[in-house]
C-alpha cells in the first residue's frame, strides 16, 4: 500500500469498491444451474460411450463372423489333410522363383529329398527327343566336355 502511495498517489486515494453488480439472486441460482449443466454433461458422456459402441457394433460383428468362418474352414483342413499332401500341393503349383525359394527354405532336409524323389520324373523320353534337346541346348564343345568327364 505504501508503495502504491509513492508511485500512484491519486490511485491510492480512491476507494477500493467493486463497481460491478449482478442480477438479483444470481449466486443463489447459479449453483442449481450448474448442477443441471453437470447432469446434462453426464448424459452427453454416457451417450458418447453408447454411440461409439453402436458405431463399432457392425464392424465387430463382421470381424467376428470372418474369424469364425476362418476357424471353421482352416482348422479342419489343418487337422485332417496329411502334411505330405500339403507339400505335394504346394510343389505342383506354379510359383515365381522367389516364392519357390522361400518355400524350399522352409522345408527341412528330409522333406526336401522326399519331395525330389517323388517328383514327376517318371516321364520317358525317346532317343530322338533326347537328341533334339541336347542339340538345341548345348554346343559341340560342351558335349565334348561332358563326355570327357
Amino acid at each position: 500500500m505504501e508503495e502504491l502511495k509513492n508511485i500512484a498517489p491519486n490511485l491510492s486515494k480512491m476507494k477500493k469498491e467493486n463497481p460491478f453488480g449482478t442480477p438479483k439472486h444470481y449466486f443463489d441460482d447459479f449453483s442449481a444451474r450448474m448442477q443441471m449443466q453437470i447432469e446434462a454433461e453426464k448424459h452427453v458422456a454416457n451417450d458418447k460411450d453408447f454411440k461409439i459402441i453402436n458405431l463399432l457394433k457392425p464392424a465387430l460383428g463382421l470381424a467376428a463372423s470372418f474369424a469364425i468362418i476362418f476357424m471353421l474352414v482352416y482348422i479342419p483342413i489343418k487337422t485332417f489333410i496329411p502334411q505330405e499332401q500339403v507339400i505335394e500341393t504346394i510343389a505342383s503349383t506354379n510359383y515365381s522363383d522367389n516364392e519357390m525359394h522361400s518355400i524350399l527354405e522352409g522345408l527341412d532336409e528330409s522333406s526336401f529329398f522326399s519331395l525330389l524323389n517323388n517328383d514327376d520324373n517318371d516321364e520317358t523320353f525317346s532317343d530322338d527327343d533326347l537328341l533334339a534337346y541336347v542339340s538345341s541346348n548345348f554346343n559341340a564343345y560342351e558335349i565334348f566336355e561332358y563326355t570327357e568327364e
Partner: protein
Amino acid sequence: MQGTDKNIIADLKDVNKRDLAFHQLVGTYQERLYWHIRKIVMNHDDADDVLQNTFLKVWRSIDNFREESSLFTWLYRIATNESITFINSKKKKSFMPMNDASEFLMDNLTSDPYFEGDEIQLKLQKAILRLPEKQRIVFNMKYFDDLKYDEMSEILDTSVGALKASYHHAAKKIEEYLKSTD
C-alpha cells in the same frame, strides 16, 4: 479453508460423493471466481458463461488434479485461462488484432446494465482497460483481490519479480491516465 478444501478434493475423487462435493465446491468458490472473471471480461453475461465453462472444466478434469497446488490456486488458474480464451475467441470473431481487446472490452463495460459504479470508478475501469492483458490481470488480482505475489505466481505461472514489475508499471500507467483526464 485448507481443511475444507482437502475434504472437498477427497470427496470429488470418490465417485459416490462427487455430486455433493461438487455442489459444495461451487457454493464455496462461485463468488470469488465470478468477480475475478468479471474484472477480466467486464460484462455480466460473458462472466456468467465463462464461470460455467470454468466449473465444467473443473468437473471434467477433477481426476487430473494432482494436488501439487492448492484447490483455490487451481480454480483461479482455470478461471483465468478460460477468461483469456473467451476474449481471444471474441477477438478472432471480430477480426481484431490479437494484442488489442480494449475496444471490445470498453464496449462490454459501457453496455453492461449491471455496472453500478460512479464516474470515478468508471474512469478507473477505463484506465485499467488500457493496460496490456497480463498487466491488467496482475493489477486486478493485486489491487482488488489482495492476492499475495506467491499465490499470483502459481496461478499465472510467472515469477514474483516479473509480477511486481507488472504491478508497478500498471499502477504508474493508471496514475498517468487519471492525471491526464482530470
